[in-house]
């Protein structure tokens, strides 16, 4: 407020003070900063609460994806790799291949098509070859490839 000799406010006249402006401004400052601090103390926990905590990903580095007997030649199988899906393919030549089953386009889950001998995403017709490379449709990147080993009857997939 303007506080020249002529323009005194009623409050100032009721409480005469040699330096009204500085005291009042100091109190206003205290009130304002307290209000901001209080609001901050309320809003900050709420804001932190709303952002979900990181769920610790399972540190699994390898997993038994299938039994040798359950996956015929020229077929594919989705398996759990930690909390993400993977795809295990047994090609027409009998070779094993494993990839992340998450399409690099918009994260749909891909499948193996025995007729085209390709990995195919049904959502937007994305196509990958058996090396995991994106060869048709919208996917921008190849699928992440995993290592496959057979251990007795188990087909073991591990991150390379």
């Amino acid at each position, binding site marked *: 407020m303007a506080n020249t000799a002529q323009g005194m406010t009623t409050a100032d006249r009721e409480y005469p003070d040699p330096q009204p402006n500085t005291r009042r401004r100091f109190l206003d400052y205290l009130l304002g900063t307290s209000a901001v601090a209080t609001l901050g103390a309320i809003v900050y*926990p*709420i804001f*932190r*609460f709303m952002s*979900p*905590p990181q769920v610790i990903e399972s540190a699994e580095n390898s997993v038994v994806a299938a039994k040798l007997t359950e996956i015929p030649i020229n077929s594919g199988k989705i398996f759990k790799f930690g909390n993400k899906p993977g795809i295990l393919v047994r090609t027409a030549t009998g070779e094993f291949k494993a990839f992340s089953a998450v399409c690099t386009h918009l994260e749909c889950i891909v499948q193996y098509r025995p007729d085209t001998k390709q990995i195919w995403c049904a959502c937007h017709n994305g196509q990958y070859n058996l090396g995991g490379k994106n060869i048709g449709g919208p996917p921008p990147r190849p699928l992440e490839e995993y290592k496959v080993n057979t251990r007795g009857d188990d087909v073991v997939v591990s991150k390379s």
Partner: protein
Amino acid sequence: MRIEALRAWLDERLSLSTVAAMAQKKEVPVHRHSIWYYFGGMTLFLFMVQVVTGILLLLYYRPSSETAFESVQFIITEVKFGWLIRSIHSWSANLMIATLFIHMFSVFFLRAYYKPREMTWLSGAFLLFVAICFGFSGYLLPWNKLAFFATKVGTEIAGVIPIVGRPMLRFLRGGDDVTGATLTRFFGFHVAVLPATATALIAIHVLLVQLHGMSVPPKLIGKPVKKMKFVPNFLLRDLIGWILAIGVLAALAALFPWELGEKADAFAPAPAGIKPEWYFLFMFQTLKLIPAKVLGFDGEVLGILAFNGVALLLFFVPFIDRDPENLRRRWIFNVLGVLALIYIVVMTVYGYVT
């Protein structure tokens, strides 16, 4: 200039100036009982805290018997400030019931229910009922042992009432026993049915208060009473109370965090020393003390019916004691109120120490 134009634009469409004029006109009487005027607003503030923290808890809570306990555990151990939000929700619920009781008793003793405020009392009595339902349904949601047995006993009590009891028990439990079906129901009541009901009732209650203005005690009716502007004088005092309440809630949550307990198990015995929430304790204690048979009737049934009778009486208070000139009846109501208060306090304390 821009802001002035915006204000004018809004005012033409929303009549803001009418609302502002109404707020300016609102006054609060100043007398030796003025302190009691704060408890209604305090209850409303704590309800707001419940709404905000409740919505936050909904971000992580999972309402099923397999996941409820684990999700609350996740909230208080993994989510940032989850312990704080959950404890504040529990503490604020309890403080809200406490301020609600204080508000009700002050309104009762100051006779704020006299004509034309009968409906205000009625909406308030319904709100008390809704608040107790909030407490009872919310208590089950963490799905821990205490909650499980409290719900078993609480719904069993409803089942004791003749004729309507049994169907009511099945409706509340979603079957014959307390199971996951009960949890789903209570969750629905707690986050949908009760909030909608409470919001409507609060709107009516507060609108009626605006319509009739603040009541003054019978002794002061017709006498000149000092007044205080609601905006900003009383509102700022309210605000100080609310800031203090936030401080108290944060301190309680930090110093006495609300326990989660053990996960409910339908095949485990009830833990020793099991007790309901404090606002049910006086009824709980009474039921423990009533002998099994009173004059040939089931003592338990009599006790429960008596409490139902008193609850029903609460709704009729303004229609029985309606004449400010009838001093005898006013005296009787004062005595009854004091007796009820003493009974509640004594039984609650007795329930705690035994």
